[in-house]
Each structure stands twice: as C-alpha cells, then as structure tokens.
C-alpha cells in the first residue's frame, strides 16, 4: 500500500490535513470516520488508557486484514490517549481506493475492528467529580463479527 499512517499518542490531529494526504493518492475515492467525545449530559472528559506495547501492532494487524480484503491505496489510523474533553477528537480512520465501495467498506471495517481489538480503555470524568470505566458495548463484538460472516 503506497500510503500507510498509524499514529497513537496524546496529540490532537487535523482531519483536513489527513484527508488531503489521502486525496493526493491517484485513487479518486476517499472515505473517513472521525470519533469524538460525546456530550452525554454531565460528562466533562474521557480518560483513555492503553497498552503501549500492544496498541500499534494490533492496529497494524487490522489494517493488514483490510488491505487483504479491499484494493486500498492508502490507510490512515490515528488514535489518541490521555484525558480528552467533550467534543474533542479521539480517533480517525481514513481510506483511499480507486473504488468508492472499497473505501467506504474498509473504513467501516477498520473502525468496527479497532473497537474490539485495540487495547484501549475509557474512563468517564463527570463535572461532579465522579467517574467510572466504560463497559464494552454488547453490540460491538457483533458489528465486528458480521464482517467474518459474509
């Protein structure tokens, strides 16, 4: 794949710049997903912890699965950790291909699989000082698994 960017760290990113890099490839089709900290009433921030020795390798393995399945020219995956306030960016997935279906499907596949295989854990930080670890959503495993049933 001519363009592969995987970045894990505390720093914010610029989706426009990431998209521009993917648009610079000769494919003609770019899809992306940006995940942000959702304001669910009383939430001040999320704290994301991760397993540094494992995180980037897991992401690269998921990207390799996508590259085996769709004709991709470029993939960008960025995942932040640390304390992230409501409305700030957490994750970015971008894909480039010569076919819109490949770009769109690979983008969905990547975020579905990152959710169940990248070793991150979210803790809520509420305005009243309380907080708890976010439970894994029951539907996440199903969303990832449906890609293996086709």
């Amino acid at each position, binding site marked *: 794949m001519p363009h592969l960017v995987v970045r894990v760290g505390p720093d914010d990113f610029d989706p426009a710049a990431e998209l521009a890099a993917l648009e610079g490839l000769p494919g003609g089709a770019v899809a992306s997903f940006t995940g942000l900290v959702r304001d669910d009433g009383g939430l001040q921030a999320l704290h994301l*912890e991760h397993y540094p020795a494992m995180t980037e390798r897991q992401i690269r393995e998921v990207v390799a699965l996508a590259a085996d399945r769709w004709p991709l020219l470029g993939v960008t995956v960025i995942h932040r950790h640390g304390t992230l306030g409501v409305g700030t960016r957490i994750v970015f997935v971008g894909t480039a291909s010569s076919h819109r279906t490949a770009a769109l499907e690979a983008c969905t596949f990547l975020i579905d699989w990152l959710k169940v295989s990248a070793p*991150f*854990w979210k803790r809520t930080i509420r305005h009243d000082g309380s907080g708890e670890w976010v439970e894994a959503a029951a539907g996440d495993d199903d969303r990832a698994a449906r890609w293996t049933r086709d």
Partner: protein
Amino acid sequence: MAGLTILYFAWVRERIGRDEQQIDHPGAEATIAALLDRLATETPGHAAAFAERDRLRAALDQRFVPLDTPIGEARELALFPPVTGG
C-alpha cells in the same frame, strides 16, 4: 527459570493497586486461569480484581488469548477488562 511480568489495566489495575508485578514463572503448563486462582489468595485486591472471570481478558506477550491458555514460554501477561477504544 526466568520470571513473568504481569501488567494490569483499567479497573483491574485499580483494584489491585499497582500496574505491574514480577513473579517467578509458574511453568509452561500452568494456565492463566490457574495463576489467577493462586494470585487471588494473595491479597484482597487480587481477589476483587479476579472475582468476575467473564469480565476479564488476557494477553500473552501482547497477543489476546483465552484465560484457559497455558502460559508456555511467555514473558509478559496482561490482564484487563474488555477493550473500549475507538
């Protein structure tokens, strides 16, 4: 035999009160589950962290594995809740 490093994340880490510990390697045949049974007798924090086995996940040398996996020659065991990234 060399040792085994155990890493704890999220509420597993909080209940145990530390993010890492070194132990003597329990042997290639020992499963993660058997090691958890033993560690759970050592401190109340370990007991609390390992009480709900269906909410625990594990990795050996940075690979996800089921809890009934033998530890084998692995040098690093990580214990954590189901992941919630993305």
